[in-house]
């Protein structure tokens, strides 16, 4: 089991290539940024994780490899959601390290706390786990869809499921993005929210693609933050930011004391 982390990279890239139907060897080599080593590939083949057709230049995950890759990708994309969006931090390497360590239970509990997100921040699908089908566990989620808020309630946006780039740009220009405080004003006949000083009407689909921190969990300083695009929408500096509630839940706060 040498070079595990390195081999995981191959499996992850193959998963991505499967999603985009570009399962050719040259593409994999390009994706590995010049760090492609044939020896690793041979090992993966002999472990039965990858099917390689050298003559045809085709390469793809085996059934067993798919299982493995699915777990890796799920962990990676959940970790991205957690670190980039939910915590609002920007440690690039964080998600990459996560996927190798975590066991299934931790992954599922992160998934639950985050309200079973369907996509990673880049808009790629997160393969669902067992916890997602048992969605009764929503009660333990720290993150809920915007549509579950009460009218007049304020919450901080945890993440937005962006099915496409167009949606991402549209709502990002209106400052509906992780960290902004959003207030649900009305649900019928149309969703109306207040975000960064502007009132915005949203269709149902768009409204339910926005996920927010459950108010008891987030340290929203509601009165100070919303009501103006000129407000302090986001946490300033370090310290007990708005991810604090979540960190406490996950037991990640010890260092802060």
């Amino acid at each position, binding site marked *: 089991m040498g070079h595990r982390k390195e081999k995981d990279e191959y499996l992850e890239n193959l998963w991505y290539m499967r999603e985009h139907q570009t399962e050719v060897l040259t593409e994999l080599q390009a994706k590995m940024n010049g760090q492609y080593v044939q020896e690793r590939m041979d090992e993966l083949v002999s472990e039965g994780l990858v099917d390689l057709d050298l003559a045809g230049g085709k390469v793809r995950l085996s059934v067993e490899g798919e299982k493995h890759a699915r777990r890796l990708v799920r962990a990676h994309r959940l970790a991205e959601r957690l670190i980039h969006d939910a915590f609002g931090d920007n440690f690039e390497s964080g998600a990459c390290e996560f996927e190798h360590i975590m066991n299934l239970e931790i992954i599922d509990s992160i998934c639950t706390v985050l309200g079973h997100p369907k996509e990673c921040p880049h808009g790629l699908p997160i393969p669902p786990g067992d916890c997602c089908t048992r969605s009764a566990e929503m009660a333990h989620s720290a993150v809920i869809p915007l549509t579950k808020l009460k009218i007049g309630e304020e919450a901080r946006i945890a993440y937005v499921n962006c099915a496409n780039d167009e949606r991402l*740009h549209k709502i990002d220009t*209106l400052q509906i993005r992780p960290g902004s405080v959003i207030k649900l004003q009305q649900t019928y006949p149309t969703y109306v929210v207040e975000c960064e000083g*502007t009132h*915005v009407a949203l269709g149902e689909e768009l409204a339910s693609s926005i996920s927010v921190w459950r108010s008891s969990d987030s340290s929203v300083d509601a009165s100070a933050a919303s009501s103006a695009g000129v407000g302090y929408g986001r946490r300033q500096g370090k310290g007990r930011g708005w991810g604090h509630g979540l960190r406490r839940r996950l037991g990640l706060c010890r260092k802060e004391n």
Partner: protein
Amino acid sequence: MKSAQPQKVSTKIFIVGLPNTGKSQVYNNLTGGYNLVGNYPFTTVEPIRGRCRIRNHDCEVVDTPGLHSLLAHSEDEAEVRRLIFREKPDVIVQCIDANRLKQSLVLTADLIDLGLPLVISLNAVDETTRQGIYIDSKELSRMLGVTVVESVATQGIGSRELAEAIFRAGTGKPLKCQPRVTGAIEEVTGGIPDTTPFRRLIARLLMLKDPYLFNDLQKDSDGSAWVSGVQDLSAQVTGRFNGGFAWDVNRSRSGWIDEMTGKVVRRHQVALKGLSQTFADATRHPLFGVFILMGILLGMYYLVVNVANNLAGWMDAALWVPVHARLDTWIGPGIVNEFLIGDYGILSLGIANAFLTVLPILSVFFLAFNVLEDIGYIPNLCVLTRRIFEKVGLSGSAVMPLVLGFGCKTMATLTTKSLRSQRERYIAIYLIAFAIPCAAQMGLNMSILGHIGVQAFAIAFGVLAGTEIAAGMILNQILAKEACVDYIQELPRMRMPDAAAILKKTYFRLKSFLDESVMVFVYAAAGLFVADKIGLLGGLKVVVQPVIVGFLGLPLEMVDALILCMARHEAAAALIIDLVGSGKLNNIQCIVAVTLTTMFVPCMANIAAMIKELGLKSALLMTLYINMSAFLIAGTLNWVLIWGRL
């Protein structure tokens, strides 16, 4: 700009900004001209140009339709970008609504990337100050590297400073992305020839998969090979980000915006929810909102019936009756008499109708309508009515143009450019042209039906609303389905109406009505007069009698009204008012006449806008369908009403 002979060099100034940020107001302040201003998005749908002299420089000022960023989401935004790329303005003035600083900075980042001199007009600072929010414009200016002028455009405060700043404008400091992103953009920029302006921006927009740019570039470069080359390069480079390039770019920009606002914005007190906000919430509320809408409609109805109709009656009695009598005796009977003051006289049917019947009604109605526009009521109607329109296949983005149709159908047709879906565009243009009365038509309809009573008004508008929904549902069934587009719509802040601004706007609306239509009234009257004299009109009436009298149950005089309708709807309405006054139309006929003329032939300007948006063939076919439906529906209504009364 620093030419020794400033007269010869014209400085081109572009005013750009998010929708509803006061661009037209700034344009008016700079040029001293008048471009319609309003508290709703899409007030300006086509670029407006004006010339003026600022500090002894000859300037060309261009007021542009609103856009959120240079990455185009719809055809109208793409058009503004094309304009900027093509004309390369000497200075760009970005209007920022101080209430929406963060949202505006998204566009600022893009404008700085253009590398053109930029000035920022920070509008509505009075509103933020009242809320206890202080924006440090000096610090903002320092961080952006461009001049920021605080202003209250509606009162002209800051105009002089803005004019000064335009001639000191410099290029701003671009935002820095992560090195990985910057490197990727550089790489794609390398694929664009050096001579192409705005290379870096073009590279970034291509990498963000702008839906219009590739085609535009191909058109501009006559299909040069580099365009597809750079497109492939862009796909290849962004592919390395595993689909996350857009996300990384947005992330850098969000960080930049947060850093900026964190340093620049100070809040002194917690703002209380103002009265206007409570009202705004109520107008969107599913229950109160409907009551408010009903109240507004009824209020306008009674205003027109009680004030405008009386005003028109009084003006007619005081100004026309004595003149008519004097002319009559002075000229004596004969053809001259008929030509001037007969049934089709250019003075009676032309001038008197325009000034004494239509003008007073429009003055009162526009005054009320402009108040609604300026407080920011109109877009809230979208929230209320979206569900209904969803049933007819409109996803919500199309509701705004439809609602704007109640103002001016021509403008509304042009705003359909903001819709991504061709299908929705077609449905929206159809529905706008069909049974929606524009502000002028609405005011006149109210005036006509006011002679009978409010129930007549309810019947006529019930039928029009039903027609609209039925037409939408049929179109929805006929046209091929398309993927649903997200609905997202900014709602403007409710504002107290400003009397001076509203009077000014009403004045300009009435002036443009008079400029456009008085001569049309006169020509139409003259045309009818000639057609009558040579027997054409009589012949036509014999031919159409079965339809008009038999099917529609209307008197033959309505043929004149329908002909006038083709020239100008207001002229037809004025004739109907005359017919009602002389007792030639009973209640049922009145309702039928109003529904018919509301639907019959959209006005010429509207047809021209339809041709522009859809092409000649589609537009004419659409007009034909609409006219046929108009007759069918009005005829059916006639029989239903007669049957109902028995």
